[in-house]
């Protein structure tokens, strides 16, 4: 089942366009290698920013996308 979630960007890997995220509600364990919308401005993808995350499959973090940063 798809989910929309807020997250806190903890790290961004530009070459693979993937992120390490703290999904709000899990402050001690992070989701890793989450694909990031390649249209987002890289300069905005800094640690600590709030991001909008769509989990197309709640059990498969690779099937997800960071769609926005604010």
């Amino acid at each position, binding site marked *: 089942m798809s*989910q929309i*979630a807020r997250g806190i960007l*903890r*790290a961004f890997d530009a070459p693979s366009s993937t992120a*390490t995220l*703290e*999904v709000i*509600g*899990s*402050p*001690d*364990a*992070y*989701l*890793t290698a989450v694909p990031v919308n390649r249209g987002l401005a890289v300069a905005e993808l800094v*640690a600590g920013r709030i991001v909008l995350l769509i*989990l*197309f*499959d*709640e*059990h*498969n*973090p*690779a*099937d997800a996308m960071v769609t926005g940063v604010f």
Partner: protein
Amino acid sequence: MRALTATLAAACRKLDAEPIVRVRIADTPLEAPRLDLTQLYSEASLDTYHDAAVAKDGSLVRARATGGRLYMQRVTTPTTASQWSTWTDLTAATAAPVAIAADSLTAAVIVYYVSGTQIRYSESLDYGATWSADALVHDPGAPIVGLAADGRYGYQATVFAAVNAGAGVNYVARAYWTGAAWAWDPGAANRTAIDGIGVGRDSTAPNAYCYLVIADGTTPRISYQEHDGINWQGGAVIIQAGASSPYDYAHPRLLHQRPADSLDRHCLTLVERCSAPAYQRALISFTPVRWWLSETVPWDHTTTYGVVILRTASWWYLIQSDRAHRAPAYTGASGQLLDVSQDAVTTIAAVEQLNHGGELLIELDNSAGTYATAGQAGALRPLRTGSQLALGLGYRTTGVEYIWTSTWWIRQIGFADRGARGTGALRITCIDTAAWHELLRARRQYQWSGDSLGSIIQKAWWCVCGEASGSPSGNMALTVPQFSVQAGASWGAAARRLVESSGLDLRFTTAAAVTAGVGLTSVDPEVIDHAQGASAYSYGPATHPILSGVYMQSGQIAGHVDVVGLDLLGRWLDWSRILDQWRDLPRTVIDRSLDAQAEVDTRATYEGLRLQADEDLGLIVARVNPGLQVGDVIDLTDSRAGLAATLRHVREIRTRYNRSSRPHFDQEIRLGGIAT
């Protein structure tokens, strides 16, 4: 289906057989002990390095390092508070880790402590009553940040030491007594920021491995390793905080205890430190696998140096440096186990559903106020939320015959007072294992990489059944690149996803070997093919009479499933359905963890078979069959409905027992189709 004896099977089919009902309630709610703790003592906050062990004579030996001294204590009568607050000043010691090992075969107890950069020890040969002069184990020439001692079991004394030799070159070393001197095996200098170690050993295999838990890492974690007496082996990360998160872990301890009550669990404790919000708190976990940590209970007293869990023959002890608590071990004694006589049971209404949680209501006759003290200290203590309830159903045959059906957990206790009639009832509402599993939520996010579905489901279900070995089904051998359970997500929902994507169903029953019906190993998980296979039981006039029935024929319209994997398409088509309806109604499933054609094809077949079988095909009402389980395939014969040994699967069972003016002892069995 649970097996029936020939006599019980015969009684099920008679309309006048006398029902037998058994209700047994145990104050052991989960697949881990429920520590009903009583505080033994506490003193003004003196949280410091400490350790404790149980000597062979059962006395508790404690050590703590504070104010430049090492203090020892021996507690022979735990209920005497003064014994807990009386300390003997043994020797000078640095404020650093201490460790105690008690020999399980002799009166020997050894305490290890730190003086400067030296690891030193003192030995007692009388269960901790008196101590030898201290002596040197080894001086690594660098700060010692962790000590963990291994009981000797009649063999060589061993102490593991974490040495902070510099950034990036910290190490965990092993010192052991050769019979003439201490040997020092420094191991690999490959660790950073060590903040405590713990050691455990399987008490049933004393010559086997030492199990180490180590707090270390620039990204804070508790890791696990084994030492076989010669080499380091294995390795796993038990818990890891996100880089730059406010969380950190320290002072892990491991106890493996397998006493006579068959509790095959490892007890792992650690200190969780958080900077925002600021706290330092012990977490306690009982886990069937030493490197699994998915269920923890927080301890409500702040501690920097953690807690020690000990187990004696009759008690669990939870010891901090400045306080101690204990809880009785489960023995099935009065106050822990309650057998309810059949005379007291007036009503039973149970609903069990396939792949979903069930509910149970039991009413006990309380006209005389028998249960007025339910849940309070005393014999009725088990009548409280979280206790385990076993329900046995059967018939009087040549004797009393019954089967423990499902295991239930008490959700609420209440009273119904019918004063006008001069009667009253104790109402016990319960949920079954599946519902309990649904309630249990992930405390943090869990993510597994490259693990099989069969392995993952055991990590999801052990918290309600303890089962942690073997592959539940060949269908679950598939390895997936990633599987995660989000913080706050239901473990039951995760387990359901895993079985349903494998063409299977998950149900729980009372383990046949557990004749008591309750206990820490009473719940058995069963993974079965969904709505497939031969009939396990027959209903009809010549077999088990059907009291009433509603029979629906298949109304399946869709006959097309597409499974979209990682750039792959698997397709399942039910041609008879498509041509019969002259429609092509596709159902699409997206699962991008499937990355091979065979995987999407297999998944499409599983989804198609589920599509065929997941229909409501009516219900029957019949006398109680205590062996029947949801998910069973049964056959029905009813000539008026044109049914002759027609297969159905059991989607839901509603069991009713009532011994009032209109007595009932029957089951309403809701039916589903069969995958062909």
